[in-house]
Structures are given as C-alpha cells and as structure tokens.
C-alpha cells in the first residue's frame, strides 16, 4: 500500500510550439484512496496517469510512490499495475497465461502462481474461462481479465485508463459498481482516468478535474458539485451542465429576465458570471415570481424532463429540470422560478474563479 504524490510534475512534448500536456501537477493520492482523474479529451488526464506508470517521461517536477521517488524509474520497478482502455491482453496467451505473465517474469514458483491466478479468477468469476484465448471472450469478460491481470500482482497502486469505455451502457454500470467494490475490498491505492463524469462522481473518493494539463480542482464529488472552484469545473461537473450567464450587477443583484436575483456574495460592480444548476430552477404558474422562457427543446428522461429554452428578450440559453410527467410543449413560453438564491454560484467573469463570502 502506498500513496502517490505528483510534485510539480509536467510533461512537455517537444516541438516548435511545445505542448505542456500536463503542467505543474501537484496532487497527492492517499494510501488506499480511489482518485478519479476527469476532464475533456486533451486535458492531459491520461498523460498524467501514464506519467505515474512510467510510460511517459516526467520533464519537470517529480512523482513518488510510497516514500520512493519513481520519477525516472522504468515501469517494472514502480510496483504498479495498469488496466488499459483496450485491455491490451496478450492475444496468443490463454486467460491463465495472461494473468500469470507478470508473476512468471518475477520468477515466482509455479505452484504459487497457480494459486494466485485461481484466486483472482474466482474473485472475478473467470474460473471457467481460464483456458480460453482472449478472442473467445466477450467484451465484459476481457475487461475482467484485464482487471485480473492487474490484481494478481498485488501491486501498491492500480492505474486504470478508461477501463469501461469499450463496454455497452448496461455492462458499464454493472462493472462500475464491481470495480468500486473490489477496490474497497483490496484497499489498494487507485488512480482512475475517465471522461465520463458519472463514473467520476460515483466511483471516486476524490475527483481531480483537469483542463489543458492544469489541475482545476480536486475534491470529493459532493464538494465539486456544490462548490466548484471555477467556471470550468462548474460547467464540466453535472449533467446537464450548469447554466452559466454573464450579467451586469446592479446594487448587489442581477436580473434574470424580470426576476431580480440577489447575489449571495458581495460582488462589487460591473459584471459577474452566475451559475444555476437545472434542478435549482423550476416551472411555476403564470404570474408567479420568475422569468419567461421560450421552450426550444424538451428532453424526456422518464422521471425528469429537461427543458431547454431561451430567456425571453435575451440570447441566453437555459436548461430547467421539470417533472417528467407534465413537460411543456415546444415553442411554448413557460414561467421559471429560482428555488433559492443560496443555490446561485457566482464567478468572476474575468478570471472565472468562484467568488465566496469572506
């Protein structure tokens, strides 16, 4: 067991205009913690993971695992196991050989390898497939073999690079829960990369949000959702995304259509960016306190419906969560109210940073 610490770790791809794929990453993953790295494509999340694996150079800063500085160690000396997006199974080896490969390379006695592989296989429900080749397995089974290959090694850190993105939706949900449960049981420090924020929110003890190689925020899923540190995190976490509007401030309040919204924090003058989650807005009857929304699209998800529309008299688009049983119709004008001004997030429009009471 070990903690993983990035200290100012950077990966710079050389070239005429060099790219800082990961830029000065400072991040500490606690012993036994499940940390999710999330971000849009190109955010450097996979690169950051591969730096910990030793598959990508660390050009500045350092990385340590436990109390060892592993910055320049080859992957095999880092005591890590990795699960790849494509699973990267060895196609010419049976499931048993795939799982035994790393143990064989370590020179472990045959009988011990056998029992470890059996143990991992029964944990992952793979016992009956041990003598099959990967091509004779389904996607979900291959995924489990990839997991098995990682856990037989009993490494101090698991590194997982989008391990569920090749599975169909139903299997993904199932496997998501299985991986999370397995990690709790083994209590092995895990870094998990995903672009799927549902995975991020449901699996991680903490979630680190990356953008253009820079860490935006690292916090528990709840904290990320409730107090995003900047506009990017606010817009990235949550589905559908938070409504973000830049509006002029007048006497500590902004106007959403006809609705005057008193800002929960002192915001000076000029403009602010406010963020309102779709569930902080609700449809109300005509004449009640609120603003008018021209409905452009209704997404019905069963229990809920998401109403997309334009703020009357503005170009700003908004999404409102509504009851799934009585959604408004397209083209209709609806009245929208804000549940609680305390649920309004306020950001500086220049820096994008959250403005808090202080």
């Amino acid at each position: 067991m070990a903690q993983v610490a990035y200290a100012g770790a950077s990966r710079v791809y050389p070239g005429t205009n060099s790219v800082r794929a990961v830029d000065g990453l400072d991040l500490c993953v606690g012993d036994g913690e499940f940390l999710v790295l999330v971000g849009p494509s190109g955010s450097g999340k996979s690169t950051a993971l591969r730096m910990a694996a030793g598959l990508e150079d660390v050009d500045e800063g350092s990385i340590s695992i436990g109390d060892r500085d592993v910055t320049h160690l080859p992957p095999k000396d880092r005591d890590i196991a990795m699960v790849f997006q494509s699973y990267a199974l060895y196609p010419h080896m049976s499931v048993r050989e795939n799982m035994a490969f790393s143990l064989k390379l370590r020179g472990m006695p045959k009988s011990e390898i056998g029992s470890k592989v059996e143990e991992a296989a029964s944990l992952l429900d793979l016992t009956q497939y041990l003598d099959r080749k990967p091509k004779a397995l389904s996607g979900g089974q291959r995924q489990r073999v990839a997991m098995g290959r990682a856990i037989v090694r009993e490494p101090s850190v698991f590194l997982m690079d989008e391990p569920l993105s090749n599975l169909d939706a139903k299997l993904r949900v199932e496997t998501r829960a299985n991986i999370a449960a397995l990690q709790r049981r083994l209590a092995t420090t895990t870094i998990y990369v995903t672009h799927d924020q549902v995975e991020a929110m449901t699996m991680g003890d903490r979630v680190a949000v990356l953008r253009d190689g820079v860490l935006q925020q690292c916090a528990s899923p709840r904290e990320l959702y409730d107090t995003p540190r900047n506009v990017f995190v606010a817009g990235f976490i949550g589905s559908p995304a938070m409504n973000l509007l830049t509006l002029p401030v007048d006497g500590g309040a902004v106007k959403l259509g006809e609705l005057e919204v008193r800002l929960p924090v002192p915001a000076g003058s000029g403009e602010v960016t406010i963020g309102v989650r779709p569930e902080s807005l609700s449809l109300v009857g005509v004449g009640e306190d609120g603003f008018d929304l021209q409905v452009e699209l209704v997404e019905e998800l069963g229990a809920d419906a998401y109403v997309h529309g334009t703020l009357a008299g503005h170009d700003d688009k908004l999404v409102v969560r509504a009851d799934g049983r009585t959604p408004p119709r397209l083209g209709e004008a609806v009245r929208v109210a804000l549940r609680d001004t305390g649920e309004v997030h306020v950001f500086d429009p220049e820096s994008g940073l959250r403005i808090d009471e202080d």
Partner: protein
Amino acid sequence: MTARTNRLGGSALTVLTWIVALLFVFPVIWMVVTSFKHEVDAATDPPTFAFTPTLEQFTAILDRGFLPYLANSAFVTVLSTLLVLLLGVPAAYALSLAPVKQTSNALGFFLSTKMLPIVAAIIPLYVISQNLGMLDNVWALIVLYAGMNLPLAVWMMRSFFLEVPTEMIEAARVDGAKLPTVLYRVILPVVAPGIAATALICVIFSWTEFFYAVNLTAAQAGTVPVFLVGFITSEGLFWAQLSAAALLASLPVMIVGWIAQNHLVRGLSMGAVK
C-alpha cells in the same frame, strides 16, 4: 425474384471463376502431363493426349546431375532467407515501434535499393565477385539474395509490426518485461504469421531467381533455374525432359506454399481484417 437473380448471377460467377482458374492452371497441368511422356510423344503437333506414361525423363534428369543443383538451391534459399529474417526482424521492429527522426529516410533508402534494375548492377557485381574470388560460389548468391529480399522483407514486416497495439507492449512493460522479453514473448508471437508470410515470399524469390545465378555461377554453385536452361540447346528443345525438370524445380515451392498457405493468407490480410 432478386434472390433468384442473385443465384443465377452466383452460378455464372462460379462458372467464370472455373474457366479462368482452368485457363491459368492449364500450362501447369500440361507441364505435369508432358513430364511423363516419351520425348517423341511430347514433340507431336498437334499434341497427343493418349500416350504411355514413363518415368524415364525423371531418371534422365537425375543422371544429368540434377541433385547438386537442387542442393545448391536449397542451401542458398534457406540461408539467404534466414539471413533476411535475422537482419530484417530487428530492422522492422526499429522502423515501426521505435522510430527516430531519420526513420522515414531509412525506409526511403530501403525502397530505393529496389529501384535499380538488376541488369544495371550485374557488371560491377561480376567484377567484385571475381576480385573476391567468389564467382561460382554459393555464398555470393546467399549474400546477393539476402540483399535483394531484405528491403521488401523489411517493408512487409514493418507493416505487420505497425499492427501490434502499442498498449499491449506497454502492458508487457508494466508487467515487468524488459525489451528482449517484450520482443520474443509478446511481439513476435503476435506477428508470427506476418513473418511466416515474409519468409515464404523470400523463399519463392530466392528459389526462382535466375539472373544472378546464370551470370555468377557455373558448374559448382549453379541453382535449379540454371539447370533448367541446360535443356534449351542449339540441337533443339527436349520438351519432356524440360517439363520433368521444371516440375521437380517447382515442387518444393509448391509444397512449402501449400503448407504455409493458411499463415500466408492470415499474414497478408492482417492489416485489412481486424
């Protein structure tokens, strides 16, 4: 309606395929048939189909010293192919999975060596061989055949190496494998069909090579194609004997090809079918 049209079209296509296939295979069949004829039956015009089969052509060929030529061919083919694989596999690995700045130039260089017609190089090659005392020597052919096949082999094998998923190699590294282990236990088993296909093509090219052999060898190091020309003489053609010799010359390649055909098909289609 469409199903019936399809079936009709399918049958027509089958018939056409058979006709084309027979057209192509007929000369080969004719060669086989002729090799069992007496020289008189072989020379008739129009050709005879009714004849008493005989093995006398084959014994005649063996009497004319076919076996040393066959041995030369086998020796040159096997060793030049091994040499190609020995040099070509690491080269293909380097040019595909461990590229450097000059990789594309190196690939261009390999290809450029195939641009000069062999005939343009034969006089310098002859003079060099003569000065080295390597005329009529199998080792000269081995080196030349390896040189001739190497560029093609490197290009071919490179395309197979490029198919190897990078993540699989990374997985092996994370699993604790060093480069030689990655190469021999993970990469080579995956590209084996491709290497087999490449080797087969090298074997065929070496076995059938005529131009170097006829110019650089004589009685000592002559290969099977050189032996075959011996039947084209000023006194006329010996059709039956030539056919028998040609049959014996092509048999080894056919056998090897037949054994390797599954590998070959899989190897050659590796890039196309995922």
